Structure formats: C-alpha cells, structure tokens
C-alpha cells in the first residue's frame, strides 16, 4: 500500500513539498516564538493573499494562461514587503507590534478579496490559497519550493547564533555592535519566504500553525534553544508526512489534517511531559553558600539537615 502511494507522481511531489515545509517552517517559527511574535506568520499570510490577487490581476491584464500564473510570485513579493513593513513599524515604535499586525490582518484579507473581484475572479478562487492545494503542486511550483526552502534553511541555520543573540536580547546585541536592524529584516524576510513556501501545502490561514505548533511541542520536552529548533523540525517533518499520507487514503483536506495532527501531538505531549520530567535533578538546586546573616545554632543544624535531604 505504501509503495502504491510512493510511486504515485502526484504524491511524490506532494510528499517532497510537505517534507520541505515540515523542516523550514519550524526553523523560522523558533525565532518567531523566541521574539514573542508567534502571530507574525499569520499577519504575513494575510498580506500574501493580497499578493496572490495582485498577481492574478497582473496576469489577467497581460492575458496570461493560466490566469493564476503570477499568483505565487505575487504572494512572495507581497509577503516580503509586508514583513519588512512590520519590522519598520516595530522599530519606529509608533504603533505597537500588536496593533500593526492587526491592521495587516484586515488589510490583507480585504485587499485580496477586493483585487480578485477586479481581476474578474471570485473569492472562491482564493480558497485554494487560503486552505492549500497540495495535490495540484506542479513541477514549477515544486522547484520554487525547493529553492525558497534552501534559502530559508541556509539563513535560518547558518546565521543561527547571530539570530539567537538578536532574538534573545536585542539591547545586548546592539551593545555588541551587531547589525541588529539587518538581522531583524533577515528574520522578517525569511518568515515571508516560509509563508509562501508553505502556502501550497497547508494554505495561508494555517501556515502559522506549522511554524508555531512544532515549536510549542518541542518546548515541552527540551530546555535549550538549539534542541528546541532541532526537535521542532523533526516534529514538523513527521507531522507533515503523516498528515499527508492519511489524506492519500481518506478524502480529507491535507492542510487541516496536518494541523489537527500537530495539535493532537501537542495535547498528548503536554499530558506526558510532566511525567517525563519527573526524573531526579542531577544536583541540589540550592547552592551551598554562606548566608548573609549569622544564624543561631539551631538554625544551622536545620540547614545541615535540609542540605542532606536535597542530596
């Protein structure tokens, strides 16, 4: 049965796309969670919808067939522009990042629906982009996905120490003379590319789930930044491939299946994590240091007894 699935050319393309998305989305998601910008992916996704419609409009104007030939390039451009805009707003500090995101959400959806109407389509045409259409991935789409994923991974992994520094403590990074503004823009642009990579697999409305949920799962079982990223990638790949395989036999939406599966894993892991972490700590968490006050003899004895208990 599995060989049947693996020999299906449609499925081969879909699995490869899912694999790439499963790796890249959590890499970028780790930085977004680290900067407490978990919803940035959603904001970019909404703006990308305007880009899809804009690409459609331009394509229609140029008389291209199929009329959505420029939809993905349009999404890439709009997502990159939108993500850099968010970073500019955040830097200026005039509007809170929260409000700026909210305005992008609304503007992105409204702009998309408005423009697709002008282009002679209907909002129904947007559905495949909103919820994904992995079964219609073409060879050209796949190549674009491969190239964009390679770029995202090269930056996300190659610059991980610098991106960690900037995301962890921006003021310290500035006081270290790091090119903080450039690194922030890099994170924003890489997020935008990831959104467009994942668009075909899970759809713009669910893109962010693939960036964030694997990270949330990884956080339950690890307490280090590097391990969190690695674990999230493994979870992302497993969830994407499993979810997609399920839809080969059952006629359900791949994007929704993948996301529901991820959230189910999250629920199970959060129930099990407390049991796993109940291992004994390696050493007494209280360092044995002299107190700042002189203790009476009885207190000193009690302190010695307490130290023994912790050992």
């Amino acid at each position, binding site marked *: 049965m599995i060989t049947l699935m693996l020999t299906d050319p449609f499925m081969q393309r879909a699995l490869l796309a899912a694999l790439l998305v499963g790796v890249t989305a959590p890499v970028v998601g780790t930085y977004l*969670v680290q900067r407490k910008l978990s919803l940035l992916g959603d904001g970019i996704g909404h703006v990308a919808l305007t880009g899809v419609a804009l690409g459609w409009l331009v394509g229609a104007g140029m008389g291209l067939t199929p009329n959505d030939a420029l939809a993905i390039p349009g999404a890439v451009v709009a997502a990159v522009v939108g993500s850099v805009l968010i970073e500019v707003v955040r830097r200026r500090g005039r509007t809170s990042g929260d409000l700026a995101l909210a305005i992008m959400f609304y503007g992105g959806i409204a702009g998309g629906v408005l423009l697709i109407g002008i282009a002679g389509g209907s909002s129904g045409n947007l559905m495949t982009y909103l919820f994904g259409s992995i079964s219609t991935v073409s060879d050209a789409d796949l190549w674009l996905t491969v190239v964009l994923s390679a770029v995202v991974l090269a930056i996300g992994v190659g610059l991980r120490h610098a991106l960690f*520094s900037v995301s962890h403590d921006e003021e310290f990074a500035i*006081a270290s003379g790091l090119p903080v503004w450039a690194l922030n823009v890099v994170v924003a642009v890489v997020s935008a590319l990831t959104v467009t990579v994942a668009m075909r697999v899970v759809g713009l409305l669910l893109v962010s789930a693939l960036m964030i949920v694997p990270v949330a799962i990884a956080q339950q079982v690890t307490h*280090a930044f590097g391990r969190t990223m690695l674990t999230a990638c493994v979870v992302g790949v497993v969830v994407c491939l499993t979810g997609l395989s399920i839809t080969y036999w059952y006629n359900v939406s791949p994007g929704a299946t993948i996301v529901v599966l991820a959230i189910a894993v999250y629920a199970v892991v959060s129930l099990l994590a407390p049991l796993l972490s109940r291992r004994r700590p390696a050493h007494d968490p209280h360092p044995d240091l002299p107190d700042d006050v002189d203790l009476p003899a009885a207190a000193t004895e009690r302190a010695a007894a307490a130290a023994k208990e912790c050992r």
Partner: protein
Amino acid sequence: MTNTGRVETEQVTETSEPVIEARGLHFRAGASHILRGIDLTVEPGEVVALLGANGSGKSTLVKSLVGINVPSEGTVRLLGEPLGAGGRGGTVDWGRVGYVPQRAGAGGGIPSTAQEVVASGLLHGRRLSLPRGWRDRVAAALEQVGLADRVHDPVHLLSGGQQQRILIARALVREPDLLVLDEPVAGVDVASQEAFATTMRRLVDGGLTVLVVLHELGELEPLVTRAVVLKHGKVVHDGAPPQARHDHDRAGHRHQHPHADDNSLDPAESRAFDLEVRP
C-alpha cells in the same frame, strides 16, 4: 585582561586616548529631559563608579555610551571611535567592549541554556558566527562567575542572582578591555559579591577598564579609582570616591563632605544619594 593590557595601562596612560569620551550628552524621551549635558571621560585602567539615586539617569547614560540609546545631542567616542547615527559604531572594536545590563531581560519565549546565552557574548561587530573553541571559552567565563556546573542548565530556572552572574559571564567571555556594568551586584548575595569583587580585582590588575553603575560601593570599594555622581541628569560630582557618610544640605549641595557626626544623619537624605553607609 592580558599582560599586554597591563603594560599598556602602566606605560602608555599618558598618551593613550580615553576609553570612553562623552561630550555634551543630552537624552530626551518624549517630554522628559533625562540627561542634561553630560561630559564624561574614562581613561584606560580606571575603575569609575557611577552613582546616583534611582531615576538620576545612570542607566540611560550607560545605554547611551554603548549605543543602545541614541542621544538627542552630543557625541560619544568609544575606544577612540565615534558612535555613529542610529547608535551604530561601524568602526568601534566591539570585541573589546563588554556590557552587563541591569537585569536579565524578559529573555526570549524559548528557554535557553547558560551555555547558549554566554556564547552569544562571543558575537560582536561583524562576527556573526561562533569562533573555534567557543565551548572552552564559555566554560572559562562561567568558571569566573562560579557557575561552571550550570553550563547546560536553562537560564530561566536559575535564581535572580545567578542570572545576573550569567550576564556578567556573557560580557567577560569576549575578554574585553572595557567593561560597562549596570548594577552588576544588585540582588546578589554577599558571598557572590565577594567572589565577583575578586574576579574584578584580577581583571583590573590585568589592565581592564571599568565603568560600573552602583548604588553602593560595597565590595568593589577598594577597586574604585573615581566616582561620578549623577543627579537630575547632570554630573554633580566627579572625583574621589566617597569614603564615609555624607551629609547634605537640602539646598544646593555640590560636593560630598565627609561628616564627623554620623548620628545627625537624616536617613532620607542619605537615601537620596544611595551611597551605602559603611562603618
């Protein structure tokens, strides 16, 4: 912190440039005028304590000196190089500057280990990836602050004082020539303060220059060569570190007078300057 550093301080002090040079520094945040014309010079090998009450502008000044705050007016030169527009000093040798913020920031949304946080101190200027042997350097820096056994512990599970020491290790790991510390021992127990003072003594003997914001001279008192006192955004004292209790008239005091009669001290006044009273 190297032997060459010591030679430099002992022999070249007369001719070498100031490590920090701030001229006519103003900083405004909205309507509040926080720094009102600060001139501050720190020469190589000095240990300068920056004192003053809460809200006197100490942290704002320190952040302006390392490029985090962009001053409204005035200039800052760090290691002889100007901090440019946007707070970025393209020509400053950032590998020679270590900064310890007042307290651990909220940190990120993802737990990180002591090793990961301290290692981020090895990145500076255009160095965007960790050098060879970074694990050993991180371990050595953690050793200096007495947290060598916590290298793989998540920072958010450490106590406040331990987190403070992680931040000190993060600044020390790049082996700076200039250390800028913002209340490094606030909330740190006396034993750890002593250990910190011992570490600082060793580094200063090796030629380290220090600018340290303090509320009380405390364990660092023997090291401090000069004190700068800020009040209402201006330098009101720049000279010998205060050694004894100080009594100040409420109106227009400029200097700190050693005062013989400790009993007449108004505690509220002494708190206004936040200089610790030491027996």
